[in-house]
């Protein structure tokens, strides 16, 4: 059976936005820095609400930040 994982381009996008720090992004989307770290590492999948807020912080569409990837079972 295919398994899918949500991956993200947050690290790349942060660097494209004047090397935005994790803390700056966390402050923008009103979460803790630890949450940003967990999302970037793929250990936590954000809610739709938070995902949209992160996309808005980068001024990018949602699918430019998050995408589905087939993962090995």
């Amino acid at each position, binding site marked *: 059976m295919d398994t899918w994982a949500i991956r993200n381009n947050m690290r790349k996008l942060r660097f494209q936005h004047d090397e935005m720090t994790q803390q700056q992004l966390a402050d923008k989307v009103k979460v803790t820095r630890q949450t940003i770290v967990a999302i970037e*590492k793929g250990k*936590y999948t954000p809610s739709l609400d938070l995902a949209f807020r992160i996309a808005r912080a980068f001024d990018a569409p949602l699918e430019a930040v998050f995408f589905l990837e087939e993962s090995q079972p």
Partner: protein
Amino acid sequence: MSAHERQATVSLLSTLLLAAFFLVYVLPRYPAGNPYAPEVFHFWGWVVVILVPVSIVANIAVSIVFSVIYSMATQEQASSFADERDKFIELRALRNALYVFTCGFFLAMVTLAIGMPPSVMFIVLMCSGYGSGLVGNISQLYLYRQGS
């Protein structure tokens, strides 16, 4: 260590302190003699009535003392801000704690069903209460450490 990990550690410490208080000051006052006597139920009733407010006050006191010490040591305020991931971790820890308490409650009923004295049932209930608190705090610490 994040603010929430520190809070979970403090909560774990206060649960352990309360367990020590229970073992040192409360259990030795258990009325000796007939295990089915009304005094036994009276005793356990008072234990619960006293321990609930004591545990709430102790938790608040330990948290305040910790916040003061932390602020003095690091010159920064302990954050109480909880985002969606903190709430998610809290819920998962609570779920684990409830599993433990449910098992403990079932075990307490088993002791009654097989004819053991009611005091055994109360002891199992108290232990499952403390056990669930410990499991909740340890789960929280584990989930934060794991980074989920």
